Every structure is written in C-alpha cells, then in structure tokens.
C-alpha cells in the first residue's frame, strides 16, 4: 500500500469529482423533464403517444448505457452529413454527448418511476377534488404531481445513485471525470488499487450524501 500516493492523489480526484457532479446534475435536471413528459405521454389515452413513450423507455432501459454513449459519441460522429449541420457544434464536444446520453437514459427510467407513481394515486383522491369543483388542471398540478413526487422519492433516490455511478462511463469518451482522472493517475504510477480505493471512497461519500438527502425528504413529505 502506497499511502503517500493515496494522499497525493486525493486533491486531484476531489477536483475531478466536480466534473462528475456537473454531469450528474445536468443530466438529472434534463432527465427529470424528459421523464415527466414521457410519464404523461404514457398515461395518455392516445395510443400513438402511449406507444411512442413506451418504445422510448423500452429502448433506453433495454440497452447498456455504455452502448448508448458510444452510439451517440462515435456513431453519430461518423455520419458525414451530420458533421456539416449545426448539430455538430454540440455533438463535437464529448461533454455534451455524455450529457445527452445520460439524460436520455435517466429520462427513460424516471418516466417509468413517475408513471407508476401516478398510477398508485387512488382515484378517490381525484374524485374528491372533482366533487369540490376544482378544475382538472389544478387537480393535476396541485394534487397529482405532489403525491406522485412523494411516491416516487425512494425509487428516484435509487436512480440518482445509479446515475452517479453511471457517470463514470464519461471517461470512455475522453472526459476527465473522477474515474477518468483516476485512470490518468494510474497510467503514470501503475498502482490501480491505491488510486481506485480513493476514487471509490469519494463515490461512496457522494452516495452517502444523496442517500441521506432523499431520506430527509421522504421524512419531511411523509403523510
């Protein structure tokens, strides 16, 4: 065990985890919107919208995140026509490619989480709102969404943690996130165990924080 290496690599890894957090928060925010949109589409009675939303979540939950990143980064990068369009400004950067892939992936899972949360709302609650003469739009925003969010908290917390670990795949498209920098340090010191233990510890700490924030929210919004 090379303790000195562990101590020396800690600040470098810590600053790299900022990139990890940036990737995570950006893709979670975008993913939440995508998830909400597709959850609503899933609940829609229109068969086309319903099937479209189902197909999306089926596609992104059924393929590995690594494959998705590779298709978006290397696959789209290989299409010559695409390189002449405005889209290339975004797709040229590995950072945006990673965020697109992560957002689409977490969006698919989030849509499933939210859909099942909406479906657990007892019809009696909605009927109670209706009988009080509340417009259905307000029932949706003020009653259904808050309940759905509370219901989905445990599962969504799980998704955040999975996504946090998923961001480590960003290093495969040249991003210097926590895993990327850990690999870089290993490439010059040839000591994987020490460096990965420190990197793993930082991931563990981040998971610990996420876990406790979700736990706090669950308690706060329990009824």
């Amino acid at each position, binding site marked *: 065990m090379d303790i000195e290496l562990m101590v020396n690599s800690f600040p470098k890894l810590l600053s790299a985890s900022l990139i990890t957090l940036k990737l995570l928060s950006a893709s979670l925010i975008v993913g939440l919107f995508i998830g909400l949109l597709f959850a609503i589409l899933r609940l829609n009675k229109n068969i086309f919208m319903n099937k479209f939303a189902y197909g999306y979540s089926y596609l992104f939950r059924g393929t590995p995140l690594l494959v998705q990143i590779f298709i978006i980064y290397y696959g789209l990068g290989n299409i010559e026509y695409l390189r002449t369009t405005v889209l290339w400004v975004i797709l040229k950067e590995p950072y945006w490619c990673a965020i697109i892939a992560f957002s689409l992936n977490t969006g698919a899972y989030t849509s499933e989480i939210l859909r099942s949360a909406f479906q657990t709302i007892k019809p009696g609650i909605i009927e109670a709102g209706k009988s009080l003469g509340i417009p259905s739009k307000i029932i949706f925003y003020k009653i259904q969404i808050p309940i759905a969010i509370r219901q989905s908290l445990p599962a969504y917390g799980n998704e955040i943690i999975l996504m946090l670990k998923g961001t480590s795949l960003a290093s495969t498209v040249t991003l210097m996130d926590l895993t990327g920098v850990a690999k870089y340090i290993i490439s010059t010191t040839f000591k*994987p165990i020490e460096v990965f233990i420190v990197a793993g510890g930082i991931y563990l700490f981040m998971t610990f924080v996420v876990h406790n924030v979700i736990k706090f929210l669950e308690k706060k919004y329990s009824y």
Partner: protein
Amino acid sequence: MKYLFVKLKERIMNIFKKTIFSVLFSLLVMGNVQADKIKIGTEGAYPPWNSKDASGKLIGFEVELAYTLCRYIGQQCTIVEQDWDGMIPALIMRKFDAIMAGMSITAERQKAISFSQGYADEVASLAVMKGSSLEGLDTPAGINLTKPDAAAKKALKTLTSALAGKTVCVQTATIHQNFLDSGDVGKVNVRTYKTQDEVNLDLASGRCDAALAAAVAFSDYAEKSGKPVVLTGPTFSGGAFGNGVGVGIRKDDTELLKKFNAAINKARKNGDISRIATKWFGFDASM
C-alpha cells in the same frame, strides 16, 4: 435388504472417491503444465505491432516474434490479451509474465518494471486529416529529443505555435501522451483514449485537430479505412519517446529477463527480427 443397501452405499462412495481423485490429479497435472509455459500479455489493438484478425486470433509483428523468442528460450508460450491501460498493473499482479505490446522503454516505466533490450524501434508522428491547416508544417523530417540540436529546438518551437489551442488526441498511458504532457510543445489540449482505434475514429470525425502515435499506426489506419489521414511535422524519437520497444518483465523476475535477452540476441543474429519486422511493417524496424 440392509446388506444390499450398505453395498450400494459403498459402491457410490467408491465412485465418488475415484472421480474426486482423478479430477484433483488432472488439475495438478494441468497446473504443472501451465507453470512451464511463459504467459505473454499483448494488447491486440495496435497494428502492425499487435492486432487481431477477423476471427479474433491475435496476429502482428510481436505475436510472431513472441513465438520465435519462445522457441529460442525453449519453453512454450501462450499469448493473452490485456487492455493497454492495465498492462503494467496486470504484469505486476502476475496475470502474465512478460509484456510484448509495442511498449517503449522509458525511465518512467522502468520505475515499475524492467525491460529486456529493445527489439524494435519506430518513430512517432503527428497525423491530421487532409486539408487541415496543420498539414505541411515547416520542420525537418525527423528530430531526436534525447539531445535536441538547434534544428530540433526550432522544430519544437514551430510545433508549439502551430498547436497552440488545438486538440491533440492520443492513446492513454503512452509515450505520446507523456510527450504532450511534458510541455515540450507548449499547452495543447490533450484528449486521451483507451485504444488507438478510438483515436483514429475521432481524428476522422474531426473532433481532434491532430493525433499523435506511432507513424505506422496512422498509415495502417489510412490504408485500411481509406480515410485521408496524412502525417505532418517531424517524426519523433528519443527523449520522452523512449529507447525502442522491449519486453516488459517483473523486476524480481531476473531469470526470465536473462532468457529473453539471450533469445533476442540469437533472433537478431539469425536475422529473425528484421525478417518478421519487414513482413509486418513494410520496412526493417528491428534494432
């Protein structure tokens, strides 16, 4: 009835004992056989040094050379595949006994493992896509960085101003990455990839302004893919680029190191190395 039962039990136990014994025995024998074999690790993704054919079989200069060296050593060899970025850790952790993966002998790597004498050397070069502004830089054909002369220093200056703010792509944990990190060509935007294949892909897609690797790695890619990849600037050797490619061996494994050095001597004398090198590189890269 009871007697029959006991008899049956005895027979079953006997069969059990026999199978366990024979399985253990065969394991023991297999273990012994494997102990005699030298395991050599290679990447299988860096043509023409080492790569894989369509069926997934390892081929290339080093694969052929490895079998030749093992013949001189007089031991059987197996060649195993290992990702480049875990090559040296895997050797240290005894997943195999020797590295033959186009690995240049550098001072940095020698801190972790020892190297046999070099068996081949090959220059590095920058590559760009045809039509790039970096094409046709005004530099000498080749520079040696061990003791850079005036022309080499001037070439580095030309490169520094040409590459300022550009993205240069390299495979991770290579001499090429070390060179760019050393600051000899100023502050360039270095992007690292797990394999040379990925470097080539991103060079072709235009995400990299230039890429740095063994010159043959680019000519091999240009030939196979038909993409307009061209070499630019000087070829590099010496300094951060190391002193040729050798067999990487664990530091405590001095016995094996001696065997490989002797085998390389014999193979060089008999002309095997230059014959195999010419076959794979198209020129004599042996040393």
